[in-house]
């Protein structure tokens, strides 16, 4: 779960990290009022879960009322990489002489958290990591002990942070780690930490992503989750509890188990088709889940055919088949051709039950995928 900048900044500020004065606004009037109160110059910043907001026109500086009004008008309601901007953060524009990067994330390969500090702040840190890895000081932290103060200092001095602000930056990093730990964060970062001419440090941006698997014990953070203006289908998948990713193709894919679904996608591609989605319905395949999955795939207007690939482990193939029959039986007319492949426990019994007026049954994964690709191609040609 991603926090918005304004939410993360509130969390940071509550923990004692210096942040610029700011106010959230969801209308031009509110934005102008906020700017007048804060005093110019201000930054007007789109609050959407999109990287590279600045380049995309989602952040504008304003030196006076007129500019603030213009900025708010430009940004509110704009489309940023598919997301509509509904709120902006109006923030004191900090006059800085230097920008740093400070962050904490999980190093999955090492299985432990890593703190990072760089004097190349204010730019895309992944690009820095790629082009100039030495410019980022990394300090791994033992998850049992938590971060020792010396580790924060070491990262800061190793990064070459100017000595005038080293202690303040180390203190921010220690706080960030504590927040990361207490909040079950996956990533937490400030990019940039601005250094002013009188050696003040200020968190000018704020990123905080929470481990979805830990939201059950982070009720306050979970409440911050907003109905994001995300893809309608992805919102529906969330509601149904499916792992779903929308893609660009026209072959709808439903399966059980992440690896098997990915493999089905790959095979669609292998046989010349283009997958429309990743949809993992997980273990078991009761009628309701099957219905919901079909509902989702059919709701995607790009879909021209569907391949349903279930490998029954503990789940029995005959039960799955019954679920598919029930789900499709509810339609007067099946919207798009559906190919079903059942394997594993009681697969044969399942194939016998399946109503071949509703679906096309194939025995192997390869055949099923090829058939679905054929159907999709045929739809396109029509």
């Amino acid at each position, binding site marked *: 779960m991603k926090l918005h900048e304004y939410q993360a900044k509130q969390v940071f500020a509550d923990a004692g990290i210096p942040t610029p004065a700011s106010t959230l606004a969801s209308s031009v009037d509110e934005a102008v009022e906020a700017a007048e109160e804060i005093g110019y110059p201000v930054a007007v910043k789109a609050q959407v879960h999109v990287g590279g907001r600045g380049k995309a026109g989602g952040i504008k500086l304003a030196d006076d009322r007129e500019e603030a009004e213009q900025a708010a008008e430009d940004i509110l309601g704009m489309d940023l990489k598919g997301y509509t901007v509904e709120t902006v953060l109006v923030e004191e524009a900090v006059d800085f002489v230097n920008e740093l990067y400070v962050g904490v994330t*999980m190093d*999955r*390969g090492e*299985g*432990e*958290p890593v703190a990072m500090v760089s004097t190349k702040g204010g730019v895309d840190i*992944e690009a820095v*990591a*790629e082009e100039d890895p030495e410019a980022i000081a990394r300090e791994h932290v*033992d*998850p*049992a002990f938590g971060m020792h103060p010396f580790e924060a200092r070491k990262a800061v001095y190793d990064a070459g942070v100017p000595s005038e602000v080293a202690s303040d930056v180390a203190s921010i990093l220690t706080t960030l780690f504590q927040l990361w*730990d207490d909040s*079950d964060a*996956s990533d937490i970062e400030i990019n940039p930490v601005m250094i002013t001419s009188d050696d003040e440090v200020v968190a000018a941006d704020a990123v905080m992503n929470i*481990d979805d*698997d*830990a939201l*059950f*014990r982070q009720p306050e953070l979970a409440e911050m989750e907003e109905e994001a203006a995300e893809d309608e289908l992805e919102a529906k998948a969330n509601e149904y509890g499916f*792992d779903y*990713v929308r*893609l660009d193709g026209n072959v709808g894919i439903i*399966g*059980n*188990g*992440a*690896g*098997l*679904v*990915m*493999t089905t*996608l*790959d*095979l*669609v*591609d*292998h046989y010349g088709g283009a*997958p429309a989605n*990743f949809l*993992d319905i997980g273990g078991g395949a009761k009628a309701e889940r099957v219905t919901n999955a079909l509902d989702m795939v059919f709701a995607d207007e790009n879909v021209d055919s569907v391949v349903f690939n279930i*490998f*029954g*482990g*503990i789940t029995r193939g005959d039960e799955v088949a019954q679920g598919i029959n029930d789900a499709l039986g509810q339609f007067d007319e099946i919207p798009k051709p559906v190919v079903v492949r059942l*394997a*594993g*426990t009681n697969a044969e019994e399942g194939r016998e039950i399946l109503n071949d007026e509703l679906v096309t049954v194939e025995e*192997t*994964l*390869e055949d099923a995928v090829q058939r679905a690709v054929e159907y999709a191609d045929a739809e396109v040609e029509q």
Partner: protein
Amino acid sequence: MSVLVDDDTRVVVQGITGGEGNFHAEQMIEYGTNVVAGAVPGKGGQEVHGVPVYDTVERAAREEDADASVVFVPPAFAADAVFEALDAPLDLVVAITEGIPTQDMSKVYKRLGEVDTRLIGPNCPGIITPGEAKLGILPGNIFESGDVGLVSRSGTLTYQVVDNLTSRGIGQTTAIGIGGDPIIGTDFVDALELFENDPDTKAVVMCGEIGGEDEEEAARYIAENMDTPVAGFIAGRTAPPGKRMGHAGAIVSGSGTGTAESKIQALNDAGVPVGDTPNEVADHIEDFL
């Protein structure tokens, strides 16, 4: 004939009184697994499927001389259950639970470095030595005893590949589902090492997927240390960067690491043929035998 588990393995089922634990304990017992105890706090003294339940894993291990456990405990309590098994101590813990918070697993991972216990999982289907023992949720009926070791990050994909093998009459020594999470106990290299050291394993299937660097590390290990032939499969060739493909670990980062291309390339460079389809993997294995 196998690695890690066989018909001598004495298994505790953690969470045996829960829905999942109860069902799969029965399945394991039916398969012939030597399930000797259950462990559930507050349920000590009960019996489930003829197996005695204890309040703590330590007591279950002591009273029933158990050496392994399978964890069917909800995600909020699963890391604690693994810590308990490490403390008992058992030799092997198989954590089936999906959705354990990553920070919990990071602490478990640290602890694993301090003890002698091996963890498989979490978020995995478990481990099976066909005809002898299964610890987890794998469907026993699709496996057959034989010469091929199998290690995989994915559940149903494993079944698919096993199906391709078994239908050709190619059996398995042991199949290990290492799990799809970013932080896991036994990784590819660990599993490959076990198979390399098992005289009965004549060939190995390794099913990887996008995300992380484990497959690349495995490729290095194979090139440097393995005589047993390995065939590979990598799921997620068509996955776009930044999108999580179901498994928490299956994500290609924006900077281009963890891609299927990089993994396939690394495996090919290590002399490992990678199938385009599960069936092609079975072809390669057939060639090896």
